[in-house]
């Protein structure tokens, strides 16, 4: 199924804004949902304050829980990348060993893959279309 999705095409969605203060994260999730439903491969990159979006433990009272939504999208095959440097800057990562590229982050959900800017470049290279959301 993944091979079929790759054949059909890859949509890359890049989010710059934190969740809940505006609707950009919701738009990313809704568009990713439709793209997965149509059989496309979806890759999501969280940059800057958008790294807060992957937290599943946030409890928004009147809004869709973005972290849980991202987890469900990941279950359906979406790749969710978070910027490593942004996550370190915001306290998500402890004990980062730059030489061995090993880090400890007890609060990061397992579906999130931390990548550097090189990882972002690799994602862009693979993508057939790229859409950007929000501003940092």
């Amino acid at each position, binding site marked *: 199924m993944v091979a079929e999705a790759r054949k*059909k*095409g890859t*949509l890359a969605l890049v989010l710059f804004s934190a969740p809940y203060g*505006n*609707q*950009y994260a*919701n*738009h990313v999730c*809704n*568009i990713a*949902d*439709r*793209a997965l*439903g*149509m059989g*496309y491969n979806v890759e999501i990159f969280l940059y800057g304050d958008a790294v807060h979006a992957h937290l599943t433990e946030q409890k928004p009272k009147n809004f869709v829980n973005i972290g849980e939504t991202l987890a469900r999208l990941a279950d359906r095959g979406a790749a969710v990348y978070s910027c490593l440097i942004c996550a370190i800057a915001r306290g998500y990562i402890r004990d980062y060993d730059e030489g061995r590229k090993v880090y400890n982050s007890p609060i990061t959900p397992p579906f999130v893959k931390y990548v550097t800017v090189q990882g972002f470049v690799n994602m862009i290279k693979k993508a*057939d*279309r*790229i*859409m*950007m*959301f929000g501003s940092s």
Partner: protein
Amino acid sequence: MLQPKLRTIHRKTAKGEREMSGTCVLLMRLPASEDEARRMLGIIQRSTERNSGAAIYLLGEGTFWAKGLMPKRYLSMALDSGAAVKASRRDLFARGISECDLDQRISLMDDLEGELVEDVMGRANRVVSW
């Protein structure tokens, strides 16, 4: 005032439906100023000159383009030039914008995100988002 030079070429499919090719412009917020509106429209203009057309998608706060005085004027210019404009029915109504407030050339979509994905992945060759 900016004179729009947008052009949109719609190919006819076998079923006779209009098919957009070219640039998709996703608007999710209002312009902060007339200068910015002009810049956003300018990008549409340049994109359509290089490609074969443009479609504008109004999503979330972007649906206010259909109502606000200044943005509406710019949207009308894009429509006059032949760009297709599609808006999320759900987001319009959530903001109290009724159908009678809208330019009749704007297509209301029940699933704008699905429409956008189809166009972005299947028909357009460029996507710009604001």
